[in-house]
């Protein structure tokens, strides 16, 4: 499946942006999993040093190997789930609308759409030292109606995105105004 199929792209529509979270936001998760993967090794050294008798006998060795293997595989799986959660949060900006695809967990996803000509306010939030240095932050897009509100979380170059969204919104508003005038004249 391609992006066009996912968003049911219209004939006059073209994709301007495909935005994901900044890769730096995934580094703490990756680091946490590296630490968690080292836990069996640390445990093995602790047990073999303090309670070596626990590792004796015909049962201990195969059970420990199976447990360690199952633990590592579970960590890989959880890491992959976290990656999917990170990577599948996607914002697509076309010349007509914004589509927010949010992956909440493995079995929960929401897709929100917002017409560009309805945009009233675009706000950029950059909080903290790293976001300031690396240039990433949240971009909030609001419409006049209070129920539609899209936030691009931790995206790179938020100010450039804000400027482009305003530009695209103005162009779309002109296009829709032209369409309305055409309808009235007919």
């Amino acid at each position: 499946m391609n992006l066009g199929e996912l968003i049911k792209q219209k004939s006059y529509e073209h994709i301007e942006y495909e935005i994901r979270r900044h890769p730096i936001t995934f580094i703490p998760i990756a680091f946490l999993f590296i630490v968690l993967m080292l836990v069996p090794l640390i445990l093995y050294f602790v047990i073999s040093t303090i309670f070596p008798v626990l590792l004796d006998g015909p049962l201990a060795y195969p059970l420990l190997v199976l447990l360690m293997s199952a633990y590592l595989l579970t960590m890989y799986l959880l890491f992959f789930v976290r990656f999917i959660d990170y990577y599948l949060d996607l914002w697509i900006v076309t010349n007509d609308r914004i589509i927010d695809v949010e992956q909440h967990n493995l079995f929960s996803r929401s897709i929100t759409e917002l017409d560009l000509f309805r945009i009233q306010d675009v706000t950029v939030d950059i909080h903290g030292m790293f976001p300031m240095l690396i240039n990433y932050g949240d971009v909030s897009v609001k419409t006049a109606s209070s129920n539609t509100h899209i936030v691009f979380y931790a995206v790179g170059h938020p100010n450039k995105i804000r400027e482009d969204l305003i530009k695209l919104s103005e162009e779309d508003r002109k296009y829709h105004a032209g369409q309305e005038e055409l309808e009235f004249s007919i």
Partner: protein
Amino acid sequence: MSVAIPLYIFLFIYFVFLAVFLSFSLINFYHVIITASFTLVSFTMSFFILAITILTLYLTASLLSGVDWQTTVLVFDSSWFSGPSGPSF
């Protein structure tokens, strides 16, 4: 009275775990495909996960190659609850 189980029971439990692991991994990969996110980044990450999974399974198999799975493990023995001269209750 005593209850003993063969060691291969633990291996069966591990295989059940592997089946669950495989199904969840496939669901993950399915998500990548249906959300049009099959890019170089997601391919690299999927490949990396697959590679370390294969490596882990290979290491597990090689570490367990010499184990006699027919060995029985005592999980319950009534003598554990009795003294040397018979039941303590």
